[in-house]
């Protein structure tokens, strides 16, 4: 099979006349699902599958990461850009436990992922065999679904279910624990694959109910100060055009959540900024003044709401959400709409009155003026000695025309990146929101680049987070991926330091981080790099990074004790947002 290049269709056609092993059935199932890329790391219990993979290397691109966590985050980055499940392939025991963080991350951030994990022989299950771990037990609370495959015959049906569950409804991670026995034994019938289109015990509602749509429309049309909160659901359902049309017709201001960034053009007249702990001033304060809150594809995370007992108490709430368990979970919905964001917005559009709400929208501008003066201008135009993180991001935004995919890690730089990057293109943000996983950005960026090879992908990372997964530089080099790495180095674990300063009486407990020479490290991985220390060379440094043919690491030395503002202190009301 490996001698001459075949297409996936030819491989599948040929297989239908043969009896294959479970491992081959897995490969064929992946092909039947349209998978062409895997992120993985081999090991004992998954070896029969890797042996089969060798025969499919023309049609399945395998990207060898340097740690299983990298495989998971790369699959996540890939999934976000491709809007379909990313696939991770790892071995049992430690291979599987190393994948826990990405699985948990993918569940919280609704990212479709199918993780195939090796497992010991059937007869060894439960005996504490070498590299045996109870992967089903461990991943139960952090997966949308998991299943242990113990016979080859199960493979096609279970794979079909796995992709269906991962990719429909509210997307999420699925784990398949694949025993060595099932990988090695022959199927008892010829391979055939039927895509899963429905399940008895799982039927997500896509198209919302008419009465829910009508109730929502009525509430929206009566509103004097309506306010749209657009979340990740817009990106997932690719409802950007519908959101734009809805906002333009209704005249309603739109704010986005962290994961909803890039759902609407940053320069769109209806766009008023982003929400939450480090979101904008007006977007947070006016949450407590609007009369109808229209939440679309978001889940009222505590980083968005602050103190729930003081969150939008005056407002009636239209909650458009595909996961019924999110309705009323944190914020009581006056008019719940269960369904896909795109379908819901399509259904709502003809029922919505044409309006413009000029006075209400002006209120946001008033807060913008204050924020601009107190924060933005002081960040972007100052004569301090050190570069501020915001300057680097604002310049990056300008140089990439707001069209890059930004992949951010977790911490101060993440908040700054979303504050100062002006997104002009949809689906341009990959970040770890719900889980807040440091070390996410580098592997996620390489996955994003594989998923969107034609787009400029920039990983924006702090000096702390970079050191958690920096071994993936080797993967970037081996796969020749043109990923740009921007390290905003303040020589501190900055976000924790900021909290210690503000809420722990300046007691800087173990946040002072002594860093290696990042450029030398990159060189060791055959990746070009540069350290920028002066404001005067910031633009040229960024230009060099962006224009470099291939991966590039730019370290920008930033002001050490810069704080991120605005900030809603944890557990406080959104209108108690602090500007300094």
């Amino acid at each position: 099979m490996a001698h001459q290049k075949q297409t996936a269709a030819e491989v599948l056609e040929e297989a239908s006349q043969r009896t294959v092993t479970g491992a081959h059935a897995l490969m064929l199932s992946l092909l039947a699902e349209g998978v062409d890329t895997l992120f993985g790391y081999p090991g004992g219990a998954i070896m029969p599958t890797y042996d089969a993979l060798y025969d499919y290397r023309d049609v399945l691109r395998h990207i060898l990461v340097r740690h299983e966590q990298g495989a998971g985050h790369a699959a996540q980055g890939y999934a976000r850009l491709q809007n379909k499940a990313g696939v991770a392939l790892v071995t049992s025991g430690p291979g599987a436990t190393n994948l826990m963080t990405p699985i948990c991350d993918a569940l919280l951030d609704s990212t479709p992922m199918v993780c195939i994990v090796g497992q010991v022989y059937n007869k060894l299950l439960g005996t504490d065999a070498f590299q045996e771990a109870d992967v089903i037990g461990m991943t139960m609370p952090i997966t949308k679904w998991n299943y242990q495959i113990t016979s080859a015959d199960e493979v096609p049906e279970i794979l079909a279910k796995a992709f269906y569950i991962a990719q429909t409804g509210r997307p999420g991670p699925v784990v398949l624990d694949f025993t060595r026995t099932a990988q090695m034994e022959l199927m008892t019938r010829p391979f055939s694959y039927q895509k899963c289109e429905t399940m008895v015990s799982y039927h997500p509602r896509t198209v919302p109910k008419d009465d829910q749509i009508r109730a929502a429309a009525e509430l929206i049309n009566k509103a004097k100060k309506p306010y749209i909160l657009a979340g990740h659901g817009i990106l997932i359902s690719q409802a950007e055009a519908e959101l734009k049309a809805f906002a333009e017709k209704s005249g309603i201001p739109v704010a986005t959540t962290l994961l909803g960034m890039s759902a609407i053009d940053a320069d769109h007249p209806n766009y008023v900024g982003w929400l939450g702990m480090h979101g904008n001033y007006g977007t947070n304060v006016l949450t407590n003044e609007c009369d109808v809150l229209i939440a679309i594809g978001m889940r009222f995370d505590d980083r968005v709401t602050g103190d729930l007992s003081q969150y939008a108490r005056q407002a009636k709430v239209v909650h458009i959400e595909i996961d019924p368990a999110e309705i009323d979970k944190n914020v009581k919905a006056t008019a719940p709409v269960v369904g896909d964001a795109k379908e819901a917005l399509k259904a709502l559009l003809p029922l919505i009155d044409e309006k413009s709400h000029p006075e209400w929208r002006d209120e946001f501008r008033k807060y913008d003026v204050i924020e601009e003066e107190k924060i933005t201008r002081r960040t972007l135009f100052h004569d301090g000695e050190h570069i501020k993180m915001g300057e680097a991001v604002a310049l990056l935004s300008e140089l990439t025309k707001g069209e890059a995919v930004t992949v951010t890690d977790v911490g101060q730089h993440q908040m700054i990146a979303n504050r100062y990057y002006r997104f002009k293109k949809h689906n341009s943000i990959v970040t770890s929101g719900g889980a807040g996983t440091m070390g996410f950005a580098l592997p996620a960026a390489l996955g994003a680049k594989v998923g969107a090879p034609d787009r400029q992908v920039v990983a924006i990372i702090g000096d702390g987070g970079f050191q958690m997964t920096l071994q993936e530089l080797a993967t970037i080099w081996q796969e020749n991926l043109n990923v740009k790495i921007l390290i905003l180095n303040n020589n501190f674990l900055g976000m924790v330091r900021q909290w210690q300063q503000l809420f722990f009486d300046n007691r800087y407990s173990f946040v002072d981080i002594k860093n290696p020479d990042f450029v030398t490290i990159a060189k060791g991985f055959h990746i070009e790099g540069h350290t920028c220390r002066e404001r005067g060379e910031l633009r040229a440094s960024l230009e060099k990074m962006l224009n470099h043919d291939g991966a590039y690491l730019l370290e920008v030395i930033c002001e050490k004790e810069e704080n991120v503002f605005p900030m809603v202190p944890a557990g406080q009301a959104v209108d108690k947002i602090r500007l300094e």
Partner: protein
Amino acid sequence: MTNYTISIFTTNTVGLLNRITIVFTRRRLNIESLTVCETERKGVSRFTIVLKSETREQVEKLVRQIRKIVDVLAVYGYLNEDIVYHETALFKVSTPLGGPQLDIERVNKDFNAWVVHWGADYVIIEKSGTEAEIMEFYHYIKPQGILEFVRSGRISVSKEEKGLVEYLPEEGVWEIA
């Protein structure tokens, strides 16, 4: 605290019990009793879980989270008055020679309990009913000397005239009774 009874219909899948109890554990909710059996439809299991809760809202959220589990077909929450419910208890009671005599007639007539096994110096009595009825009998029989006592989890059916087919609900819709 109010008693709530949750009926969960699922496909018969390995590990599903664990998945359901995780929903309780994460929210630090205690399960008062739990019964699992296959229903009149092959391959469909029925879990009956009793819990105490301060608020109905908490139970509604719990039910939605359980409903979210793939392989769960339907979930219903009930208050006591919405259901017919029973538990069964077995009492191993001491009846030594020369000891206090067991008033079998009272046991049968007043308590609707039945001796199901006669030992040399003990009997085993089965008593079905609500928790309150069982405990009433417990206190009656206690002076006799209880050697062993075991009570089952609750089983219940709702008072609505519905078959299992109608229980397959529309997603996103759930009410207590």
